[in-house]
């Protein structure tokens, strides 16, 4: 494992004009992902994590304005001409979306959707591309791969469709894979299988991976580092075991507490986080989490906390009243 960062985000912000005013979807995010390393990004719906992934891929909506720098493999993606960017996508940079029913084209066969990626980036002929497609489908544990090539997405189950999406993403040996809520649309029983498949492939190919999810439980044991996002900003960032053992942000603590525990007594009420995320078109003067935070004090409502180091350089958090260290239940 090398220390050279494959992906470096510096001060990345995304603004969207809306009838109600400017919407700051992503606010000054700094992140790095090393080659072969996994980063988990965790946050509620609407916290900007999907917009961030689109910003990395440079696939933002037309009206969006983005700033900052996205360095991938030594190149600043914001400055690249569109043609070079297109060649990077699908090849070095791949993505798996949340819902395989809508992310796969319903009127094209599975084979077509696999083969077109291979032929576009690797310049294989049809026969070689077909063979490779069968290999890929087998690698993601899809039975009877040759038959699948001629089938349509609606003929497969949800879990299998997502495996196909993963196969497509892995087809050209990408350096970085972004998985945006890859299991949210799937049955609970299948979720673990898909996640394990992703991790297995990641380790085998020494591929960097960003795993985006709203469920803190998903990243435990599967990622090297975790970044917690809230209202468009990264509010805590640490290597995974450190985060679970020594979390500082009250928000992270609340997220962890919201995961149902298998050994909790029956009918234990789930501690949901009360309140709702702030309206992104009306940013608060103070900490964005302060209206819902049970530790909030005056300073929290008036000043925005900056990211500061905790016990080591690798653990950053943004809070004026961090929780003290000590094991938090459920880590």
């Amino acid at each position, binding site marked *: 494992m090398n220390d050279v960062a494959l992906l470096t985000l510096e001060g990345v912000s995304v603004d*969207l*004009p*809306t*009838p*109600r005013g400017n*919407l700051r*979807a992503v606010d000054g995010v700094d992140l790095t992902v090393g080659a072969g390393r996994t980063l988990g990004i965790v946050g509620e719906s*609407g916290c900007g994590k*999907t*917009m961030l992934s689109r910003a990395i891929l440079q696939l933002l*909506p037309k*009206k969006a304005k983005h700033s900052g720098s996205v360095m991938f493999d030594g190149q600043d993606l914001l400055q690249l001409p569109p043609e070079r960017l297109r060649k990077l996508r699908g090849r070095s940079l791949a993505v798996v979306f949340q819902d395989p029913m809508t992310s796969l084209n319903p009127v094209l066969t599975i084979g077509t959707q696999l083969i077109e990626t291979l032929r576009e980036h690797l310049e294989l002929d049809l026969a070689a591309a077909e063979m490779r497609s069968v290999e890929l489908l087998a690698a993601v544990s899809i039975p009877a791969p040759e038959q699948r090539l001629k089938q349509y997405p609606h003929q497969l189950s949800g879990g299998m469709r997502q495996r196909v999406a993963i196969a497509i993403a892995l087809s050209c040996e990408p350096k970085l894979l972004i998985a945006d809520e890859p299991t949210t649309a799937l049955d609970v029983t299948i979720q673990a299988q898909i996640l394990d498949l992703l991790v297995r492939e990641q380790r085998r190919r020494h591929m960097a991976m960003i795993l985006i999810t709203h469920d803190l439980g998903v990243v435990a044991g599967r990622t090297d580092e975790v970044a917690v996002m809230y209202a468009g900003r990264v509010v805590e960032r640490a290597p995974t075991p450190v985060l679970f053992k020594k979390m500082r942000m009250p928000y992270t603590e609340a997220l962890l507490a919201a995961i149902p525990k298998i050994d909790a007594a029956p009918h234990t009420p789930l501690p949901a986080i009360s309140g709702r995320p702030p309206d992104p078109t009306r940013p608060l003067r103070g900490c964005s989490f302060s209206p819902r935070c049970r530790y909030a004090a005056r300073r929290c409502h008036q000043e925005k906390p900056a990211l500061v180091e905790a016990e080591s350089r690798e653990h950053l958090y943004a809070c004026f009243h961090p929780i003290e260290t000590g094991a938090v239940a459920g880590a």
Partner: protein
Amino acid sequence: MATLELTITEIEQMQARRLGPLCWMAVGWMTFMFAVAMFADVLPLPSPTDMDMLERRAPTSLQHWLGTDGLGRDELARLIFGARVSLVVGLCAPVIGLTFGGALGMLAGYFRGRFETLVVGSMDVLLAFPPLILALAVIAYLGQSLVNLTCILGVLGIPAFMRVARASTLTLARREFVIAAQALGATHARILLRELLPNVMLPLLAFFLLSVAVTIVVEGALSFLGLGVPPPASSWGSMIGEGRESLEVAPRLAFMPAIAMFLTVLSFNLVGDTLRALTDPRQGAL
């Protein structure tokens, strides 16, 4: 992510909802045409039927502001009286469609069941005919007259109005205010008239305007072929048909009624389309 996408389309919808200057111009033209057609008798115009064989196809002059046609009749007067005929047919025929089609549609959408199947089925049969063919056939059998023409064009419009009314009623009948009225013991008639009708009226009105545009065109086409309004009455369509013979010598005889018709049809289409975008945002962009 989904919420963010929605906010972007909100911007586009808001832009579409402004009543642009084009729309107001269309309304202006429509009003002008109406006024002119209504007050045609009172305007200081020569009679549209007076033939002056010495002044055939004469160009613009003080006596005849837009010249004369192939039989020496004043072109301006003919245009204005032609507007009257085109507009009368154009407005009365869709009224038939609106009344009968709208009523049938509302009843079908409200009562459902076998009645609905019957209504939709018979409308399908009517729609199985290419409309112009049916219109021609009926006119051939019943003879040409203004009343016949208006009636057949009106009847041809019934299926379309039925569809619009039924679609509206189907969505509205499930809403709370209808269920509430039923719970309060309101009779069917009351619900239909008081609750549903005012809401169904809006998309029907938009469709009515579009229907007027279509009717003016169809009547124009029939009259152009000589199969529409019978002489001596003449609409824009028959004027264009007659003007066709003079294309080489005096093209304005065909083009002036053509422009008048085009502008009128365009205006009705514009206003109708804008209204439809306002009342049924899902279909707006079409």
